[in-house]
């Protein structure tokens, strides 16, 4: 999988690249509009992550250039908070998703995965993790071939975990993923706990293993290896 990151802030760019590379993506990063145009003209990518505000141009024009090339690449816009116009324009000209800065890396990762999954027309669209199997198109989850009945939030949580397997995801990242960023209340962490408890219980009821580890007041990790 090839991902192109167009982000002018070097440190942010290196963080994103590092996080995505651990997913075994081939992640290339460029800092300017000009480099971005050069890259998209030379190579094919599965997903492009583009910042709107570039020093030498607008990320929106990168998207327009991609569309002109009849590219099938998935596009995620990352932009400053509350720039609704960017969001409307971006999605209007064919971007697949929009993420406001600052965002959590697991969130970006989950969105990239979701897009790549959706673009993967050839193969079967499914997520596998040991005994867990998810068919995102039908929102169907099975554990050891037993159908798992989950609430919307539990399902979202499971997908989020599966997208960020073997990673520590913070409570804040989970809260924002499930409820958006208006829920900046301490109480939302209680719900996360409730949802995780329920999810864990449901998986184990169907004979699945307990993959969710708690990381000291920080968050959770979905993994099949011991912490």
């Amino acid at each position: 999988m090839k991902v192109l990151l167009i982000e002018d802030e070097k440190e942010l760019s290196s963080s994103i690249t590092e996080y995505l590379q651990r997913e075994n993506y081939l992640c290339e990063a460029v800092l300017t509009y000009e480099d971005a145009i050069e890259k998209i003209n030379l190579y094919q990518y599965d997903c492009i992550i583009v910042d709107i505000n570039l020093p030498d141009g607008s990320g929106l024009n990168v998207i327009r250039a991609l569309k002109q090339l009849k590219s099938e690449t998935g596009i995620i816009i990352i932009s400053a908070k509350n720039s609704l116009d960017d969001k409307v324009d971006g999605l209007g000209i064919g971007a697949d998703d929009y993420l406001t800065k600052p965002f959590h890396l697991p969130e970006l990762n989950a969105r990239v995965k979701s897009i790549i999954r959706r673009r993967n027309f050839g193969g079967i669209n499914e997520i596998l993790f040991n005994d867990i199997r998810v068919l995102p198109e039908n929102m169907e989850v099975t554990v050891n071939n037993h159908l798992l009945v989950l609430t919307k939030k539990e399902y979202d949580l499971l997908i989020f975990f599966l997208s960020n397997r073997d990673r520590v995801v913070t409570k804040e990242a989970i809260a924002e993923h499930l409820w958006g960023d208006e829920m900046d209340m301490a109480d939302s962490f209680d719900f996360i706990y409730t949802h995780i408890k329920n999810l864990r219980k449901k998986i184990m009821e169907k004979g699945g293993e307990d993959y969710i580890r708690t990381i000291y007041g920080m968050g959770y990790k979905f993994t099949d290896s011991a912490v």
Partner: protein
Amino acid sequence: MKLLTRTSRYYLIISIVAYILSGLIFYRLLDNIFAKQLDGTLSEEKMLIEETINYADSVPDFRSVFGHMIDITILNSPQHKVEYIRDTLMYDGERGSFETFRHLFAENTSIQGKGYTINIYKPLRDTEKLIAEIVIAVALLFIGLLVLLVLVNYFIARRVWIPFYRTINSLTHYQINQDKPLTLTKTDIYEFNHPNEALEKMSKKIRQDYINLKEFNENAAHELLTPVAIIKSKLELLIQRENLDEQQLRMISAVFEATNRMSKLNQGLLLISKIDNNQFDKTEEIDLAQIFDKTLEHFEEMSEHLGIVVSKNYLHPAKLTMNPILAEILITNLVSNAIRHNLPSGRIEIELSESSFTVSNTGQPLKTDPSQLFERFRKSENNPESVGLGLAIVQKIINLYRMNVTYTYHDGIHTLKISY
């Protein structure tokens, strides 16, 4: 009270008092002059009578000469020489009533050693009538003059003060965040032009400071976005390290939380400065009921978790023309505020009516001054995690659309009422 009313009133009062006083003095003077003249006439007549008596050595009929009451009596014995003039009340046969007369009485000894008395009476009616006529004429003149002066004064003052009221009007309607600097109409009157210039200069300076401050706020908030994003991303990478011990993780967790708060704070400030800068200028008709429904659904899980019962009462469809994002932020902040400051198993009531909507919630009474409720960084002790910008943002949005918000606390229920 208007300055003009006050000056006119003073002017009127002082003029009336002055006119009454001068009228009284005038009357006394007039009265005096006429009395002196009358007394002079009486004395002259008396002298004429005496001369005639002395010359003719008899008492002729003076009545036919002077045409009024003269009474001369010859006395048998000589008397002292006495003379006085005074007012007296007598029956006037002609008119059939008592009238005031000026009465001259003289006693003398010259008719062959015999004494005589002279009484001359002149009616005062005529002079009194004359005085009354003069006084009335003068009074009418005075009143006319007074009315004219007051009117002239009023209209001149009104005309002269026009630039002043114009300035006041411009100042009242001036808002520091509008596009243009304050401009006041020029006049040719120094007393008005001078303060106008001073005001313009001052408002220009204040406006410049305001713009600088606003720009600084926006730049500061905007420039903080990237560092915060970098910190967050690096921390997220850091916690992926396998060899972190519990203590290290706890420290990172604390940094994480602090960064998140900083991030929220920053976003809030950026939002406020964007509202200030009118960056949400696209408006459309929004349906409050729809936004409330959406927001309540969003918070459903949380309110259920806290056992809060939400009741909606949409009495009237409430459609407002405003920016959809701001409308959503407004409602979200109000609802989240009502949840945050609620009691366990409390209530939230939402009511929409024609000209206002209210969000009420059960809760502890405020510990701080309600007037500070909408200030930035006001937060209750119960929620140390809160950034303290929610209601400040509510206030900003409400001000932007010239709506009005009032807070009341009654029977353990906080109510925020937004009127539009």
